[in-house]
């Protein structure tokens, strides 16, 4: 499904090059629950950003369904992020001044779905699945961290994506909320969604079917 070949991401600061990820070659198959783990600064988030086409690699080849993804074509990348991938990054990127419903509706504004009723139903289903429907009309700023996380996940799944990318989905959550989120991810995986999670949380690792361990930007076997 997703294949990375010799992916490098290099940042240049003060004329010095630094590898955020180095020579990464991985393959993620449909229906997998992949955990990307490693210490802070290992390159977990950078790799997740590249996988989810939020960021582009400096060198290397990205294949999706055996087709090369061209990172220069912004329109193609936007379509991938909108329809094929569900993304929930570490700071969630929720719009505080919008209601829960408006936040979850957001990806549907840019999708090919035009019917208002279908969009409404998709949002309601995503909210229901994420157990946050009761806060539908609340403003995001009034929600707790766990509730915001659920809204983030609802937004990631609203467009029925093939792959869901999550960056530290359980950080700063209490144990009970964390288990609720993990159950939610497990359910998504069970209905056939591919899940890729960047985490350093042991509880999340236990749910994963495969682990990719990173250190200093490189995969450790």
């Amino acid at each position: 499904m997703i294949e990375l070949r010799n992916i490098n991401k290099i940042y240049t600061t003060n004329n010095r090059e630094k590898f955020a990820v180095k020579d990464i070659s991985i393959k993620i198959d449909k229906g997998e629950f992949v955990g990307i783990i490693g210490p802070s600064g290992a390159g977990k988030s950078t790799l997740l950003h590249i996988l989810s086409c939020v960021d582009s690699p400096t060198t290397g080849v990205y294949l999706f369904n055996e087709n090369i993804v061209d990172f220069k074509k912004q329109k193609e990348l936007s379509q991938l992020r909108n329809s094929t991938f569900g993304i929930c990054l570490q700071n969630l990127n929720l719009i505080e001044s919008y209601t829960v419903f408006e936040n979850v509706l957001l990806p549907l504004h840019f999708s090919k779905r035009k019917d208002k009723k279908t969009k409404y139903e998709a949002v309601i289903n995503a909210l229901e699945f994420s157990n946050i429907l009761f806060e539908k009309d609340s403003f995001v700023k009034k929600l707790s961290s766990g509730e915001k996380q659920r809204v983030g996940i609802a937004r990631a799944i609203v467009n029925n994506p093939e792959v869901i990318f999550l960056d530290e989905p359980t950080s700063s959550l209490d144990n009970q909320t964390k288990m609720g989120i993990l159950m939610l991810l497990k359910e998504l995986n069970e209905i056939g969604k591919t899940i890729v999670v960047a985490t350093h949380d042991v509880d999340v690792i236990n749910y994963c079917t495969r682990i990719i361990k990173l250190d200093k930007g490189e995969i450790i076997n």
Partner: protein
Amino acid sequence: MVYLNLGYKLFRRKLFLNIVLIIQLAVILFIINYGLGIYNNYVKANKYLDNFDQTFLYYTLRDGYNFSDELFGNNEVINEPLYSRIETGNCYIFNYGIHTSTYLKNQLISGRWIEENSQIIECVVSSDGQYDVGDSFLKKIEHIEYKFIVVGKIKSQIEIIDPSRKSYEMKSNMLFYEENFSNRTVIICSTNKIISKTYGNGFLFFDNLDSNMIDEFRNCAKIFTIDDLKQNTLNEFKSQVTAYLPLIICFTIIMIISLILTSVINVLNNRKILEIYNLYGLDSLKTIKLLLAYFLWLILGIIITINIIFMISLILFDVSNVCLKLNNVLLSVSFLLCVIFSSIGFAVILINRTHRRSI
């Protein structure tokens, strides 16, 4: 519709800041249009003079002097002094010579323009008045009653010649101007039956005129040719521009700064949201659509604000100079397009380059 809705959300999100932007842009636009309105008035006043197809002179008689027939020689000369503007209650009577009145380009709504007639006093009346075409009425002027017959109707915004305006540097915009007589009756007639006070100024119309004749006229009157009037108008405009030059320079600098600031504020104000939108599928084309929708709301706000400013200004001071002319519209639209496209361009570049770092 989706983008209009999203554009409105962007607008509503930072409502106070957007209102400040709207007021700033509306005030700038109003000042630009006001300045341009003054220029338009100069151009318009000069254009009146183009109507005079005969050889024409405007004069102001020196005290105690008058034109003698000897002065005109064998030339056919029509001397039409300007009479005072007569006000009787809510009614204003302008009595011009027949030649002079012909050159006023007041558009007729109905009927015809006045013609010279020794039997009756023909007149045209303003549309807001009480009379219609074909009506006849009596009017008492300086204790004498005159009978008028209405032959035509014109709008209440009337082009007039002010008989009292005199200056050593007479300009066309002092002579010809527009006045709004709404809710009042204006009667324009051309007759020598009503002789009211003259100010010693008027027009001379010639079939043929040479420079020697003008020199002779100058002995008893201050003489202005069409070129003199145009030149004096231009000189006045130039002197005004020069006088306000520091202000114009300051204003231009402020305008450019505000234009840049508006663009930057617009982008920075909405940057985070646009980046989130971008993360969930907003590409460059959709960004442009979204920002255009946002600007539609901003422009709607500007249109409302500029109308409010105009209404307030009408009460406080004369803003009749601000006319809906082609150059006003073009300049206003150009200014707004500059703001819109610089903001959109800046936003699209910034978002495509930076969204990955800040989300």
